[in-house]
């Protein structure tokens, strides 16, 4: 929902308290102070701390933390995992949201509950679940061993665990949005002769674009940052199955505090970057909209 809330506030006029409906100066000061203090303590301070700790031993040590083979491997693995999990869950999420918002079928409420499952189950338990399923002593273990396929303590396990944990983001973002928009525009496209694919590409997708981008950003952030589930299935093999969050833990446990914070700062940086990208995309879209309107208007006057 966050995506659509962001859009809504943009349209609404700015709220200015007026004397007759506003609170007294004292109440306002206290409430605003509490809000700002909470924000500073829980959001800004940790971010600042990460970077100060990371840079404590100078820039040289900071960059050295990324160039060790283990660090490089962890960064590569994290990127690969995100690169696979995000597109797959984008497709799954859109398909699930579309099925739920557009069709009535038996078992729909069960499907909705299932989509929420990764949110309600602790990530550690999700990890264990895959160990029980794919581990050497798991249900499918013997068969996998026979065919020489490694899932647990290997990259496939990490990707599967990440897929599981990040499954709900896109679908959860899109279902309320698509339900609110209804299917009339799509039906209109069909009556105008559009094929199913054209309808999806030209009508459905542009309408859910913002919700979708927001869902993808959340999926990506979680895919890169997931610790619990991945920790269980990875086996912590340095240079092979450690993702960035796992690598950070390893460094921290080895008393390499500033190195661990350096890698942590990279993760935090990626998080901030995704937010910046989101803002840029939103701003660009608003601008192109305005420009298209202007151009068309000029075309009319010719």
């Amino acid at each position: 929902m966050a995506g659509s809330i962001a859009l809504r506030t943009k349209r609404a006029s700015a709220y200015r308290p007026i004397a007759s409906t506003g609170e007294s100066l004292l109440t306002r000061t206290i409430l605003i102070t509490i809000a700002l203090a909470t924000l500073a303590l829980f959001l800004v301070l940790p971010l600042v701390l990460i970077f100060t700790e990371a840079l404590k031993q100078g820039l040289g040590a900071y960059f050295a933390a990324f160039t060790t083979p283990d660090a490089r491997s962890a960064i590569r693995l994290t990127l690969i995992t995100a690169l696979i999990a995000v597109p797959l869950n984008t497709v799954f999420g859109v398909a699930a949201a579309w099925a739920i918002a557009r069709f009535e079928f038996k078992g729909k409420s069960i499907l909705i509950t299932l989509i929420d499952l990764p949110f309600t189950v602790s990530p550690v338990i999700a990890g264990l679940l895959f160990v029980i399923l794919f581990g050497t002593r798991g249900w499918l273990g013997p068969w996998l061993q026979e065919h020489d396929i490694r899932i647990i303590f290997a990259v496939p396990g990490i990707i599967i665990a990440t897929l599981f944990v990040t499954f709900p983001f896109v679908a959860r973002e899109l279902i309320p949005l698509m339900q609110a928009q209804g299917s009339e525009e799509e039906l209109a496209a069909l009556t105008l002769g559009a094929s199913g694919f054209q309808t999806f590409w030209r009508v459905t997708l542009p309408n859910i674009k913002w919700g979708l981008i927001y869902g993808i950003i959340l999926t990506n952030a979680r895919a890169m940052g997931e610790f619990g589930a991945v920790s269980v299935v990875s086996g912590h093999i340095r240079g092979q199955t450690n993702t960035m969050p796992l690598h950070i833990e390893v460094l921290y446990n080895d008393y390499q505090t500033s190195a661990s914070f350096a890698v942590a700062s990279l993760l935090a940086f990626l998080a901030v970057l995704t937010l910046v990208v989101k803002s840029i995309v939103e701003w660009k879209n608003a601008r192109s909209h305005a420009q298209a309107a202007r151009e068309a208007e000029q075309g009319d006057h010719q």
Partner: protein
Amino acid sequence: MSIEVRNISKTFGSFKALDNVSLTVKAGELVALLGPSGSGKTTLLRIIAGLEQADPGSGEILLNDEDVADRHVSARGVGFVFQHYALFRHMSVFENVAFGLRVKRRRERPSKAFIRQKVHDLLKLVQLDGLAGRYPHQLSGGQRQRVALARALAVEPRVLLLDEPFGALDAKVRKELRSWLRRLHDELHITSVFVTHDQDEALEVADQVVVMNRGKIEQVGTPDEVFHQPATEFVMHFLGDVNTFHGRVNQGMVQFSELELPFPENRQQIVGDARVFVRPYDVTIDTKTNGLPALEAKVVRVHSAGPLVRVELLTKANQYLTSEISQERFATMNIRPESTVYVRPRHIRVFAGREG
């Protein structure tokens, strides 16, 4: 292109939205589906368009004598205007109208210049030239409705279907748009069906009115026919105000409320209990008896603000009824509340039965 609906039924769960409905629309006609909400009119429209499936095995839809049961919506050549317009909100007016042309297969797709010309011609037709660059949220309700119409017309549909086309508009815009739609139809002659719950709209705009109730068609006829010769009690009630009496039919005469009148022309052979209907403008008022059979009544209220004067009356048998008389006649009579008057139904319609 003609439309033929044969024995179509549609059930939603346990609700019967359409019950064995058959209907023929001749090529070039403008037809209104008129009925209260839940009468099945929108369902029928959506089934013709292919947006809804009729119950399996229930009947068929023929467009130009061709069964279209297996035709996808996009291949039926049907233009559909949605009640809430369903404009593509992320596209400008121009892009909305051009959509149907741009999604055509490459072989059939017209050139960019052609599309541009066609869209501007259509926008001129719906009197929106100059607004091509606007987005739907920048338009008024009436403008959106006209964009939706232009968009539907762009692909040159063989049939135009409109779902409550003026339902979401305010009264004044509504009146303007409906006479405009009639003129547009006279210009284009495209077979059109529109759904409405407003009898004025149906009577004013349509060539043929199809009155629907509870999933069935009550009557099909010209506006004159359905208004002056309603086939059923429902049609009588739905198309305008009416006074109702309980009476008995006996030897070519109908008796009700101390009156006995000759039986009017009526298709049904009625004997025994009957219900008698009189339109308010068919109730004449006199201040004196003049020998003709009449009911004595007391004036309860007079509403004289309007083209006609509405007089509410209470008969001796304690029944309320309404009369509508011209301002001129009212001026000559000098009636006011508590006056005693003599009331005579000029024209009655009789249907069998005790309760409707």
